[in-house]
């Protein structure tokens, strides 16, 4: 499994396409794919949005994904570095994204963090 993280619009998907050869047709968006599609997708973008849609079951689902789709590329925004949201559902989502991100990172052989389009391998070695 490979994880690509960083803030929004830092060039995560572009890097995946260019350096990992991810083609359009194997990409599923976390905003719209079904949980079952995620289990077989070559690449899932906006995983933080799938976490939002999964709600309480997100950590169990993520652990299962790491087993069943262990060759996937997971693209996920880093969203936890702000003020604790006023809205309870936003607080729960933000914490869930943190927990799921830790699970994916622990199961990834490589984690890349993108800043301004520049990748840094924070786990493993860059291809």
């Amino acid at each position, binding site marked *: 499994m490979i994880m690509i*993280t960083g803030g929004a619009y830092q060039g995560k998907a572009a890097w995946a396409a260019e350096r990992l050869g991810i083609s359009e047709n194997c990409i599923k968006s976390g905003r719209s794919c079904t949980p079952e599609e995620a289990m077989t997708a070559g690449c899932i973008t906006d995983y933080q949005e799938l976490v939002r849609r999964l709600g309480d079951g997100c950590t169990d689902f993520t652990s299962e994904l790491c087993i069943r789709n262990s060759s996937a590329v997971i693209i996920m925004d880093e969203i936890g570095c*702000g003020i604790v949201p006023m809205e309870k559902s936003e607080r729960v989502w933000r*914490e869930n994204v943190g927990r799921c991100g830790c699970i994916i990172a622990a199961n990834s052989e490589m984690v890349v963090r993108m800043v301004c389009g520049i990748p840094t391998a924070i786990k493993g070695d860059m291809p």
Partner: protein
Amino acid sequence: MTTLITGGSKCGKSSLAERILDGFHGRKFYIAAMQPFGEDAFEAIERHRKMRQGKGFETIEKYTDLHELSFPADSAALLECVGNLCANEMFRDNEVVCPTDAVLRGIRSVSESVSELVIVTNQVGSDGVAYSEETSRYIRYLGEINRCIAGFADNVIECVYGIPLLLKGELSC
């Protein structure tokens, strides 16, 4: 040795902090700065309590004035977290005051009286949201406090989804 650990929400800061003190053989103190107000706080306190169970920490609840604490010789402390401490010092007595001096004085004092200190803080300035004047001040104060602690800390580590990134010094675990 003083180590500062920063990062966003639920990124494994506490686990890392506990791991750093795993090999410490003297008495270990956990300084809890989160005040048990509201359901979320209770949940968080309970979760952290369970995480620490069996790891040999003696808990001290201290929400402000950390300089009043004293520790036995050759002990270690884990302070969690500067974000709470900053809010507690800032909004005490129903008025908003600049918390920087009080927070730093307290942390320096603890740092001088224990042989190993691990401090957990938060990154709160990266969501680009325009907040009220009070919240904006809180973001600024916490940023300034973090910079000052990082200045005197031996080690500074940022956690990203459980992965420790070394920003200063060395990672001892």
